[in-house]
C-alpha cells in the first residue's frame, strides 16, 4: 500500500471562520490524504509543531478575516528553522483585506515562501489535485 500523504490544515491567527476549514478537511480526506486539522485560532507554532510530530508533507493555511499577510509573515523562515524546508506551504481564503489585485497578492505571498496561493472562492477540489501533483513529483 502506498502510504498516505499527511497534510496539516488550520485557520491562522485570531481568525474564527470555521466552516471552510471543515469542508477542506472533508474534501482532502475524500482525496485520500491523512488530514491533521488543528482548527481555528492556530498560531504559526501550532502548525509547525503539528507538522513535526505528524511528519506532514504539506501545510495548508486558511485565513478568512483579512489579516493573513501579517499572520503568515516569516512562516516559511520558521518552517526552515524547525527542519521543515521540504514541507509544501499553501495558503488560501480571503487572505488580504478587501478586493486587491490577486496577481499582486500572489506575488507577495510567493515571495514570503508559499508554494501556492489561492484567491477567494477557489475550488478546494482543484487544490487537492494540485497538492497531489506537487507531492508526487
Amino acid at each position, binding site marked *: 500500500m502506498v502510504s*498516505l500523504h*499527511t497534510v496539516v490544515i488550520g485557520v491562522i*491567527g*485570531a481568525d474564527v471562520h470555521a466552516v471552510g476549514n471543515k469542508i477542506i478537511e472533508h474534501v482532502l480526506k475524500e482525496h485520500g490524504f*491523512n488530514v*491533521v486539522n*488543528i482548527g481555528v*485560532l492556530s498560531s504559526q507554532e*501550532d502548525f509547525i*509543531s*503539528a507538522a*513535526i*510530530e*505528524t*511528519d506532514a508533507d504539506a501545510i495548508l493555511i486558511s485565513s478568512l*478575516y*483579512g*489579516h493573513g499577510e*501579517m499572520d503568515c509573515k516569516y512562516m516559511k523562515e520558521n518552517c526552515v528553522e524547525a527542519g521543515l524546508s521540504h514541507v509544501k506551504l499553501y495558503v488560501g481564503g480571503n487572505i488580504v483585506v478587501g478586493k486587491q489585485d490577486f496577481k499582486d497578492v500572489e506575488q507577495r505571498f510567493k515571495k514570503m515562501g508559499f508554494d501556492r496561493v489561492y484567491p477567494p472562492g477557489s475550488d478546494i477540489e482543484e487544490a487537492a489535485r494540485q497538492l497531489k501533483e506537487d507531492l508526487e513529483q
Partner: protein
Amino acid sequence: MSVHLLVDFGSTYTKLTAVDMKKERIVGTSRAMTTVKTDVLEGFNQALEKLEKAHPRMGEITTVSACSSAAGGLKMAAIGLVEELTAEAAKRACLGAGALVEHVFSHHLGKKEIKQLKQADIDIILLAGGTDGGNQECILHNARKLAEAKLDVPIIVAGNKDAADEIDAVLSEKNIEYYIVDNVMPKLKQLQVEAAKKVIRRIFINKIIEGKGIKKAEEKTGEIIMPTPEAVLNAAELLSKGHEDMEGFGDLIVIDVGGATTDVHTIGQGVPKRAEVILKGLQEPFAKRTVEGDLGVRHSANALVSLVSEYEFQKYYENGEDERADEEMIEDAVKRRQEEVDYLPDSDEEKAFDQALARICADYSMSRHVGQVEVVYTPLGNMYYQTGKDLTEIEYVIGTGGVLINAEDPKGILEEVQHKSDKKLELRPRDAEYLIDELYIMAAMGLLAQKAPRLALKLLKRHLK
C-alpha cells in the same frame, strides 16, 4: 477480627496504617525510620512493634499491602520529539506513574544528552516521539543512540506505532530490556498514558524494588504494588470521583510538601470557566500530578530560598510582630536543614522558618502546576488563551505529607495556593475549603482502594479534617 495492614516505605519514615475491615475503621498508625541501608525490615518491625504496643487488642493481621518511595523513589527520563507535545506527554506519563522525572529531552539525542543519561541515576527511560503514522525518523534515531549507549536501564517505547518494528529490531540486537507499548500521543494533542503507566509499574514492582534493597520487605508485606505517589494520586482520584452510589468531593487538589520535593495532584478537567477563553496545548490528564525537585524544606532548602529575594522571604515569614528573618539567620537556618534532613524545629523562630519554607513550596508549586491565561493582542482586540488547567472553581485543597501535617499552621500553608492579586493570570482556586490529612493516610488509602474502594473512600471522608 481481620486487620489489613497498609505499609508505606517512605524516604524517611516507614509508615503503617492498620484497618479493621469488619468494623470499617482505622485501628491505629505508627512509624519508624526507614532502614534501606541496612535491612528495610528493621524499620518495618520497629513500626509494627509500636503499633502492636499501642493497640494490644488490634487483632490478627490477615493481609498486607505496601507502596514505596524509599531510596530515592522511582527516577525516570522522558524523551519525545516536540517539547510541548510528545516530550510533554512522556513526562506526564512518568509523573502519573509516580516517578520523579530527572531529565526531559526533545528532538534528536546527541552526545551531550547521552552523557547526561549515563551520569544520572535513572531507573527507567520512557521513549516517545511522533503521532501514530507521523514522524518515525526521530524516535528511530533516539532508539539507536540509546541502544549504542548501553545504559543498562530498561526502556519503554511509547511512540509512533509505525516505527515499532524497526525499534524492536534495533533494541533486540543489543540485549537491552525494553517494552513496546501504545503511543503516549497517538493523535495530535491527544494524551494516552495508561499503557505506559502500567509497564512502569510492572518494572517498578519486578526490578526496581529489588535494586533499591526493598525487595526483602516482601517476605513480610507481600508484593510492593506501587510507588507511593501513585498511591496518593489513586486516593485523590477516588475521593474526587466517589465510588458507585457513594459521592465524592468533586474537583480537588492534593498538595504534599516534602523535604526534597513538593508534589501537586489535581483531579478535574480544568476546562476554561469563561466563554471567551480558548484552550491551547496538549490534552490535560484528568488526574494530574506534577513534582517540583527544587521545592522542599530540607534537602532542597537552599534551592528554595534562592528562588525568592530576601525582601520576598519576609512575606512568607511570620514570627510575632516586627520580627524579620535577616540574611545571616536565613543562611544558618538553611544550612542546618540541609545538613540534618530530619531536623525538627526547636524554637519559635525555627518553627516560623519552617512555616515560611513550606509556604514558599506551596505557592511556587501551585504557580507551576496551575493553568495560565495569556493575553494575545490581535487585530481584533485581546484574545485569551489558556494552557493547563483552570482550577478557579476547585472545591477542596487537601494537604498531606509530614511537613504539612506537623506544621504549626498547616492551613496557613495551604492557603498559599489560592488566587493572588500579583499572579492574576494564574487560574488558582478562589474559594476552596482546606483540609488536612491529619492521620497521614492518603497513600495507605490509595493502596486500600485497590481492594476495598468503598471503605477507603469512607475512611478518607471521615479522617480528612
